[in-house]
């Protein structure tokens, strides 16, 4: 039971880390789109959010589709999992 609850906690913490990472990535992209004077549209599920100046009709626009959102989350989690598995297998106590 203790092992199972530890495993569930580990999975939840890993998911939380991915959510925080994705939120910080969106914040980074928002800052970059402000610096580069772009309008940024992100598709999430059935909805979409548009960031940037509403008056900036003449600005170029970048739209990220659902595939990019899903691929981004999978890539982030995958990178973390590969790094953790590699460290777990190669770990040796310090002498």
């Amino acid at each position: 039971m203790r092992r199972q609850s530890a495993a569930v906690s580990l999975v939840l913490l890993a998911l939380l880390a991915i959510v925080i990472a994705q939120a910080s990535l969106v914040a980074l992209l928002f800052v970059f789109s402000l610096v580069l004077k772009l309008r940024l549209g992100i598709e999430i599920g059935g909805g979409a959010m548009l960031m940037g100046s509403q008056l900036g009709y003449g600005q170029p626009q970048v739209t990220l589709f659902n595939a990019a959102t899903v691929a981004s989350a999978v890539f982030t989690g995958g990178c973390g999992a590969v790094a953790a598995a590699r460290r777990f297998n190669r770990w040796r106590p310090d002498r």
Partner: protein
Amino acid sequence: MKGLLRLYPRSWRERYGREMEVLLEQMPGELGVGLDLVVGAAAAYAVVIRGNRILSAAGAYMHGVCVAVLLQAIAFVTFILYAQGSAASPAVAELGPIRFAVFTRPHLFGGLGALGSAAWTRTAAIEWLLGAAVLAMLIAALALVLASPRLLKSLR
């Protein structure tokens, strides 16, 4: 200044805390000393984390996630730079039938002739330079994140 010792792991404080407090009482309370204490706390935590297999794997997970976020930000800015320089409009990032992103440019200067076109080219060049600066900054941040475990190890 002594309050900064609370940043250190408990095991470290139990072993060296008293000694360090005495040492700090004899030192001037300068900014450099405070900075040294903060860096020392990071190095002490790195030692504790490296000593435990699960914590070490969790640290590597967080490190991998940070690298992934920076790589994606680099990919985003590279796509913008490519799209700004590309003649194709809209520029699309796709893999087979799957579309990831699209960059659309406004057609405001279409009817303004050579003057409007020159203004647009100048604006695009400035934005391209800005994009290149952002990309360089992101690559520097990625190099720093990739080197950080070795840097922390060398502080021991």
